[in-house]
């Protein structure tokens, strides 16, 4: 209905292959960015920024990373938490070891370090596939968390095993990490990182690299036939995915919570991210954001609903109920639309484009 595409014809391949070939979509994304950059900082209070927007963005980044690996390259991974931990601890070591290093560079280098670790743990993907691989990635999950727990070097010999973010600023005096950091600065910093990385991810998946990933995912035999080197392609997926997850982990530790212990990145975190991409939509950039939003908002919603209707329920019961509802919702989603929220979005959009016709 909202889509009026008559007259939007493409005279070049560049225009035809644009990320948003439909004018209305371009308006939509521009509006979304405008809201994210202007309306949210102006209208959002500290609670909103710190407990909803920032975790949403951090989760979205991690989901994006996992989606590149699982949704696009078809390699199921249960080690996301471990890679996030690598990012967090690498950032910590870099930031404390090189106090003069710009925090942006710190995040990026930590991402690269995580990518290298991801590369290492991606090697089994040459020989094993599917669930075997998924289980194998658990090895990285357990091993990495164990390592950060056991070797105090990673926490600079902190007695509690907790790392806490030192004070760092961007552009001179905008503190984005540490106790002094202003929520709006933090938010804008994360937002910019996520926006740029999301754009880069979109670019990757619509070009040569994305096509080789999807080829491997859809039919690895045929992929080899057209000259795709399976190991190289899979390893690249592991590396890129880990890069994203590493930065997400770093932001989690440094900007969202300000300090973490390795347990924050245990296997539950991995599952949480996996849920995001399943519910959001495998193989969809948008889906990573939708899934992250869903998983971040659902507990808040479940937390607040009984109170809103005036019910007093013991905390334990609430936790258990949440767990049940969460589980049931996942099954429900998989049954209703196994391809996730992104697919629902797509269907809705398609309907709007065809309106008033049914097809």
């Amino acid at each position, binding site marked *: 209905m909202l889509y009026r595409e008559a007259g939007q014809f493409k005279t070049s391949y560049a225009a035809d*292959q644009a990320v948003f070939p439909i004018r209305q979509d371009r308006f939509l994304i521009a509006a979304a960015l405008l809201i994210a950059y202007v309306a949210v900082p102006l209208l959002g209070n500290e609670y909103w920024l710190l407990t909803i927007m920032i975790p949403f963005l951090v989760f979205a980044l991690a989901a994006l990373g996992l989606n590149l690996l699982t949704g696009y390259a078809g390699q199921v991974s249960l080690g996301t938490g471990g890679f996030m931990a690598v990012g967090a601890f690498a950032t910590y070591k870099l930031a404390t070891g090189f106090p003069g290093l710009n925090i942006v560079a710190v995040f990026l280098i930590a991402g690269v370090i995580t990518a290298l670790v991801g590369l290492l743990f991606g090697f089994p993907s040459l020989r094993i596939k599917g669930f075997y691989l998924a289980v194998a990635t658990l090895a990285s999950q357990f091993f990495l968390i164990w390592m950060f727990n056991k070797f105090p070097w990673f926490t600079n010999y902190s007695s509690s095993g907790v790392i806490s973010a030192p004070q760092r600023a961007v552009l001179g005096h905008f503190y984005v990490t540490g106790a002094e950091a202003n929520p709006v600065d933090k938010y804008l910093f994360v937002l910019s990182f996520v926006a740029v990385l999301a754009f*880069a991810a979109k670019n990757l998946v619509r070009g040569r*690299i994305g096509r080789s990933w*999807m080829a491997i995912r*859809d039919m690895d035999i045929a992929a080899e036939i*057209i*000259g795709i080197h399976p190991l190289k392609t899979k390893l690249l997926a592991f590396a890129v995915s880990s890069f994203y997850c590493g930065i997400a982990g770093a932001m989690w530790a440094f900007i969202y919570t300000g300090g973490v212990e390795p347990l924050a990145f245990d296997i539950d975190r991995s599952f949480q991210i996996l849920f995001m991409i399943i519910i959001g939509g495998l193989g969809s950039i948008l889906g990573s954001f939708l899934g992250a939003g869903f998983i971040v908002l659902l507990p808040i919603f479940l937390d607040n609903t009984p109170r809103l209707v005036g019910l007093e329920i013991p905390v334990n019961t609430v936790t258990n109920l949440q767990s049940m509802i969460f589980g049931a919702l996942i099954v429900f989603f998989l049954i209703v639309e196994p391809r996730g929220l992104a697919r629902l979005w797509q269907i809705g959009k398609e309907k709007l484009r065809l309106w008033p016709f049914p097809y």
Partner: protein
Amino acid sequence: MGTLAERRIGPPLLKAEQISLAFGGVRALSDVSLEIREHEILAIIGPNGAGKTSMLNVINGFYHPQRGTITFKGETRRRMRPHQAAETGIARTFQNVALFRGMTTLDNVMTGRLLRMRRNFLWQALHWGPALKEELEHRSFVERIIDFLEIQAIRKVPVGQLPYGLQKRVELGRALAMEPTLLLLDEPMAGMNVEEKEDMSRFILDVNDEFGTTIALIEHDMSVVMDLSDRVVVLDYGRKIADGPPDSVRRNQDVIDAYLGVSHD
């Protein structure tokens, strides 16, 4: 039709020498030698289980024969991986369509160009400058193939939604996008109706004609084989029993026996 210019068939492009292949105790190929000459259309026929597909799999590196060598473009080898075969200029299609079901027709054909795309990771992430230029150049090339195979209307349709005949055409498109010197087609017309078969035959001839591509194909439909191919190789129980022009092969007693003795679909 006008006067069809003589197709120039050149020297051997590929030589398979004394190939033997076995799985466990089962012999798939025994001492098979064959040649594929430049610019020709070679048909490999034989009853079911004769080892035809195994032969293609050996040529493009899926199977590694226990004995024998393959010489392609003058280079002799014993082992190689399929992606290396692709790099040397061998493309193929499969008996059961092996497309990337999650992608559109356009993207599927574009994957055929992956080998020729060079821009590195960082350019790709920016999707700008050289990467964009490269992408658009290949798109332009791929569009010519889409035009050639007359699949414009399904350009942006996910291939999973296409009827079988069209999927086969898209798969041919993907192979063509690789600009192969040697094209291996495993039953390109299996499961097609008469009209689709005619279309496909025309495309195969046109490919051979317009691009000079050497083609080796496996086909069951005898009339198609007789019409299309310059030369026919007959396999039976993993052995080569005949090799020659279609007419002489048709009169070959061994071939007749092989076909009479075994019922094939």
